[in-house]
C-alpha cells in the first residue's frame, strides 16, 4: 500500500512553491507595474529633471525584490516548519527543501530582473533617451546578461537566506534574543553587497568599511560559504526545536 | 446496552447465552462475527473476541475456520443444565430470604405453588 514517493526535501520544496505561487506572482506584477508606471510618469512630466535623465530606472529596481525575498525568508520557518513536522517530515528535510526553494525563487527573480534591462533599453532607444548605469556593478553595460543574472542571483539568495535565519531565530529563541540575533543574521546579505558593490547599500558599506570591490572568484566562493552557513546555522537552530502551537 | 455491572465481554457472553436458552439462536446457527459485534455495539473487537472465547471454552460456540462462529449442538442443553444447577441457590433461596425479610410465611408460599401445580395438572 505504500507508494514510492519523492524525496522528502522535494516534497517540502514542491509544497512551499505551491503555497507561495500567488505571493510571488502578485509581487512581481505589482512591482513591474509600479516601476513602469513611475518611469513613464517621470518621463512624461519631465518633473525629475536632469538627475533622472539618462539614468536607468530599472537599475534601482533591484532593491525591492531583495527586501521582498528577505521578508518571504523571514516567514518560512514560523509559518511552515510546524505543518511539515506535523505531516511526518524531519526538520532536516525541511531545511533541505527550503534551500531548494531559495535557489529556485532566486533564479526566477533574477531572470525577471535580467529581462527587464533589454526591455528598458528598447523603450529608451525608441524614445531616443540615453541610458547609463548609476551604480557600480559586476556588469558595465546593460547588455551583459550573464553578469546581471549572476549578480542578482547571489544577492537574492543572500537576502532570502538572511531572512530565513531571522525567522528561524524567532521560532527557536525568545523574541528578545531573536532580535539581537537578527542583526547578526543580516551579515550574509551585507557581505554580499560589499563584495558585489551592486547598489547604494553596497556603496555605503564599501565606504564605511573602506573595502575594495572584490574579484569574481572571491564573490563566488563567498556565496558558496554564505549558502553553506545559512543551511548550517538554520540546522543548528532547528534540529532539536520543539514544535509548539504558537507562532512566535 | 452494556453497563458497568460486569466486564463487557462477560455481558456479551451472557447475552448470547440468553439468546441460546430462549431459542433466538438455534443450534448450528451462525452468530455475528466479532467485527460485526464490535461495529454494532461500538466496542473494541478484542473485547468481543474475549466474550466469544469464553463461550468457546465453555463449549457453547464452535469455530468454522474461514467462515465464522456457530452455536454448538449441545449448547442449549449445557446452558439449561447450568441454570438448573444454580436455580435453587440463586432463585429459590433468594426468594425465601426476601419472603423472610418482608414477613411472608412459608405456608403461603407453599400454598401458591400448589395452586400453580393444580392449574398445571388440569
Amino acid at each position: 500500500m505504500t507508494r514510492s514517493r519523492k524525496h522528502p526535501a522535494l516534497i517540502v520544496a514542491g509544497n512551499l512553491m505551491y503555497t507561495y505561487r500567488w505571493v510571488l506572482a502578485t509581487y512581481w506584477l505589482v512591482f513591474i507595474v509600479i516601476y513602469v508606471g513611475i518611469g513613464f510618469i517621470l518621463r512624461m512630466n519631465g518633473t525629475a529633471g536632469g538627475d533622472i535623465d539618462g539614468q536607468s530606472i530599472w537599475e534601482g529596481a533591484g532593491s525591492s525584490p531583495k527586501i521582498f525575498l528577505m521578508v518571504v525568508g523571514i516567514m518560512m520557518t514560523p509559518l511552515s516548519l510546524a505543518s511539515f513536522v506535523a505531516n511526518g517530515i524531519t526538520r532536516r528535510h525541511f531545511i533541505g527543501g527550503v534551500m531548494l526553494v531559495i535557489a529556485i525563487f532566486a533564479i526566477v527573480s533574477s531572470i525577471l530582473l535580467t529581462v527587464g534591462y533589454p526591455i528598458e533599453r528598447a523603450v529608451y532607444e525608441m524614445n531616443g533617451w540615453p541610458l547609463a548605469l548609476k551604480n557600480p556593478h559586476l556588469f558595465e553595460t546593460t547588455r551583459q546578461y550573464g553578469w546581471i543574472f549572476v549578480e542578482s542571483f547571489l544577492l537574492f539568495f543572500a537576502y532570502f537566506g538572511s531572512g530565513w535565519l531571522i525567522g528561524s531565530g524567532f521560532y527557536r529563541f525568545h523574541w528578545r534574543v531573536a532580535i539581537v540575533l537578527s542583526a547578526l543574521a543580516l551579515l550574509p546579505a551585507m557581505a554580499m553587497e560589499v563584495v558585489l558593490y551592486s547598489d547604494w547599500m553596497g556603496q555605503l558599506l564599501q565606504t564605511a568599511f573602506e573595502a575594495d570591490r572584490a574579484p569574481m572568484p572571491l564573490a563566488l566562493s563567498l556565496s558558496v560559504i554564505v549558502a553553506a552557513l545559512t543551511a548550517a546555522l538554520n540546522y543548528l537552530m532547528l534540529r532539536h526545536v520543539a514544535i509548539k502551537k504558537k507562532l512566535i | 446496552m452494556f453497563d458497568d455491572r460486569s466486564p463487557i465481554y462477560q455481558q456479551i457472553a451472557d447475552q448470547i447465552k440468553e439468546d441460546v436458552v430462549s431459542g433466538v439462536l438455534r443450534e448450528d446457527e451462525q452468530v455475528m462475527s466479532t467485527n460485526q459485534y464490535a461495529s454494532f455495539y461500538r466496542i473494541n473487537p478484542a473485547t468481543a473476541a474475549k466474550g466469544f472465547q469464553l463461550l468457546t471454552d465453555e463449549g457453547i460456540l464452535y469455530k468454522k475456520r474461514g467462515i465464522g462462529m456457530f452455536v454448538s449442538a449441545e449448547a442449549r442443553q449445557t446452558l439449561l443444565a447450568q441454570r438448573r444447577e444454580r436455580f435453587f441457590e440463586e432463585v429459590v433461596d433468594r426468594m425465601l430470604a426476601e419472603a423472610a425479610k418482608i414477613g411472608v410465611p412459608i405456608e403461603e408460599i407453599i400454598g401458591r405453588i400448589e395452586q400453580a401445580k393444580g392449574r398445571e395438572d388440569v
Partner: protein
Amino acid sequence: MTLGIEVNGLRLDYGKFAALRDVSFKLQGGKIYGLLGRNGSGKTSLLSILASFRKHTGGSVAIGGEAPFENARIVEQVCFIQESGHMTDGVKVRDALKLAASCWPNWDDDYADKLIRLFNLPVKKRVMALSRGMKSALGVTLGLASRAPVTIFDEAYLGMDAPSRYAFYEELLNDYMENPRTFILSTHLIEEVGSLFEEVLVLDEGKLLFHEETEALRSRGAAITGPAEAVDRIAEGLTVLGEQKLGRTKSVTVFGALTEEKRKAAQSEGLEFGPVSLQDLFVHLTKKRGDKQ
C-alpha cells in the same frame, strides 16, 4: 504492519518542572490504546515525544525498534493530530489535505474523500475560519486518512458535537478492523470512548499509574454500600479511594481484588456491591488534595 512502542525511564523537563518522570511501558502495537490523565498530567508531553515534536530529556524511546526523533523512516509513520493540527496561516482546507496527501506514504485519497463527505468539511474555506467542531473534524480526517501505522489523537475530537463524535468512533473502529494499525487516543470523555480501548494507560503528575487491559482495570474497582459500621469492617485492609456518608449509610469505593469470602461475608451482612465506572475510578485514582470530595 504494526509498530511496537517501547519507552524506558522517560523524562521530560521544562526547565525545573518535570513534566514526565521515569515513565516506562511497552506497547505491542496494532491495538487501540487509551491515554487517560488529568490536565497537566503529561499526556500531551508524552505524545509529543512519541511523534518527535519534542525531544525527551532523559530515558529512551523506541518505535519499531528505532529512536524516532528526526528519523525520517519512523516519523513518516507516526501521525499526531492535535485538534486541527499545525497549519500555515491562511491555508484552505483543500490545501491542508493536499499537503498531507503528499507527505504521508500511506495516504488514502478515496478514504479522505469519504470522510470529507461524512463530516461535511467545507474544502474551500480557510482553516482559520472553521468552527471548532469543523477544525476537529478536519483533524480526525487527516489522522484517519493518513493510514499512518501509529496514529495518535490528542483529544482531537473534543470540539465536535456528539453526533460527529460518534461518527468518528464508528469510522475509527471500522477502519481499524479493516486496516489494523496502532491508535492512541488521549481523552477526558472516558465513558464515551472507554469501550473502544483494548488497553489503557493512566498518567498522573508525570508518572505512569497503570497500564492494563481496560476490562482488568475496570473490574478492579468496587463500590460497597450499607450501614456504616459494616462497611468499615469489610473495607478493612482494602485500598479505599473515597467514601460518602448519608446518615447511617456509607458508600465506599475500593480498589483491588475482593476475595470470594469477603464478598460472601459482605453480602450476608446485607451490603450492596456495585461496580465503579472507569470514569469514577479514574477520578478517584487521580484525586488531589485540593479537590472537592
